[in-house]
């Protein structure tokens, strides 16, 4: 059988969506993106959900195979009642990204308060209890992710300050105070990622450097189209872009990606690399969580070949 030509480098799981509102044992309004990690053979997702009031919380979901998930009703993280964090999370917490580093699971998430979005940092060892460490940005910054290892002796993170809608990175000696911010990549006029970009899943260390999965937005007269793309960043200096794909790795095409509170959105904040296969968990139309897979080599090839074109 001849293989059908695939428009998207990422292959959608036939059983998509992985989690819909109907799969839940509780009532909620929306499902956003999820952080993903594999721990002792178990797949763990931290899924952002918006309740009927409009506030967001982060729910934990577990699976033995990466396809069938049980979602916990009691949120793993919800607006803090602690004095140090309350003001930053009055309207909820969302968009977690997990990084396994130095034997612990660090979670960068967004605090949503009336000042706007700030990046916050928390840590867990067992995904049962979680400890907030600090507010690590001023408003308005989103799409934060920690690199899994130190770079030149310092902790490093990606972020997306509102001004300019670019991906930046910063460094820290203590995870709590950050500086030395520099631009990593910017939107590209005329491309699918022409108007806004942000880090999607936590950067993955690969042979060529760091694999950056990012989301990009192009504005149209009926609203934005959010797609996923990829780039390879230098291992020692991630601001140095080794290669960047000219084309998205997945675009909204299926009904579940086109129809929802936010139309035409595929957006990821979690992926798991298993051998040479990348499992990308992505939110579709702010309405359900899906799974797409691809060979790591295919993404790398697309990035490298794009670099040759210019």
């Amino acid at each position, binding site marked *: 059988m001849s293989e059908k030509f695939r428009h998207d480098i990422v292959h959608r799981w036939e059983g998509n969506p992985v989690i819909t509102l109907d799969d839940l044992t509780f009532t909620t309004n929306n499902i956003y993106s999820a952080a993903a990690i594999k721990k002792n053979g178990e797949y763990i997702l931290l899924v952002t959900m918006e309740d009927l009031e409009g506030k967001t919380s982060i729910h934990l979901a577990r699976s033995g195979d990466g396809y069938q998930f049980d979602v916990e009703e009691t949120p793993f993280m919800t607006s803090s009642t602690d004095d140090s964090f309350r003001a930053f999370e009055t309207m909820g917490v969302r968009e977690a990204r997990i990084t396994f580093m130095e034997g612990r699971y660090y979670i960068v998430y967004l605090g949503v308060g009336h000042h706007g979005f700030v990046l916050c940092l928390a840590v867990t060892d067992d995904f049962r209890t979680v400890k907030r460490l*600090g*507010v690590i940005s001023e*408003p308005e910054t989103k799409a934060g992710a920690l690199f899994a290892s130190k770079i030149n002796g310092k902790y490093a993170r990606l972020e997306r300050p509102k001004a300019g809608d670019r991906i930046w990175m910063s460094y820290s000696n203590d995870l709590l*105070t950050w*500086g*030395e911010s520099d631009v990593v990549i910017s939107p590209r006029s005329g491309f699918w990622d022409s108007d806004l970009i942000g880090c999607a899943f936590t950067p993955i260390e690969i042979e060529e450097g760091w694999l950056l999965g990012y989301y990009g937005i192009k504005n149209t007269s009926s609203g934005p189209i959010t797609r996923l793309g990829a780039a390879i960043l230098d291992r020692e200096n991630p601001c140095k872009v080794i290669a960047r794909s000219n084309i998205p790795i997945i675009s909204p095409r299926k009904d579940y990606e086109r129809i929802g509170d936010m139309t035409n959105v595929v957006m990821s904040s979690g992926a798991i690399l298993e051998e040479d296969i990348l499992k990308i968990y992505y939110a579709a139309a702010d309405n359900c969580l899906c799974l797409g897979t691809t060979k790591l080599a295919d993404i790398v090839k697309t990035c490298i070949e794009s670099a040759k074109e210019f």
Partner: protein
Amino acid sequence: MVKRRERDLLHRWEGNPILTVEDIPFRCNTVFNGSPIKINGEYLILLRVEGQQGYSFFALARGEDGYYFDVDQEPVMMPGKQGFFAKYETRGLEDPRITFLDGQYYILYTAASDYGSRIAIAKTDDFKSYERVSFISEPGNKDCVLFPEKINGKFARLDRPLGSSDVGSIWVSYSEDLIHWGYHEPVIEPRPGYWDAHRIGASVPPIKTDKGWLEIYHGFKMTSCGPIYRMGTVLMDLQNPAKVIARSGEAILSPREKYERVGDVNNVVFACGAIVESDNQVKIYYGGADTSLCVATVDIDKLIEETFS
């Protein structure tokens, strides 16, 4: 004659403006926001000068009495020419604020580029050579002032990140090395309906008083003809500046004189520094309409009293 209350708490110097483009010994467009420091009886003002090209840089003015100044023949800080600093300073250097701390003069300024405005820090010992230290914010941030002493063992600053809906509040952050910053907290927000309804930002580096840290800040209200920039005051707890002790209800200075109303940016009074004299008189240096540098004075006790009203 009926004795009327002054409209503005601050008293404008009769000789205002103290500097205009006519006083600059090289070709430029305007001179406005400047930050003063008094060293061994000499007054220095680091000036924001806008060149004819449209971007700003810094020049230095010197004076003996705080009112009459001569400007050095050449600018003292230009946008970075190479490397990291060049990348983020292509649109110029704006609004310097000097803080003397641990024997060193630090200059906090806004670096402008296609990437947005961000805060930078430089230092000098002698106002002859200037050394850039680091950029200390992401883009979308400006109006940074460094506290003149450490708070609970850490350097502290106020700044103005632009939050949601472009509303700007004043935040405080801390650092152990002046390069990496964290522990961010909001201090004060714009007040709907007031003169500072739309956006606010730190202006004068905080002044330590026995009532708390006194901050002279700027705020604006948006009108159909554009913003009106005014000045106000806030007192913050000495140990925890995020705790506000008092905030002035009224503006302490509003654009009224011609040199404040007419210029490249109309209706602006914008301070970047002040000198507290031994007789408790405060000289506040401010830009008028982005086209002149002015000075106004007030007794510090009156300023504190006004903050509680």
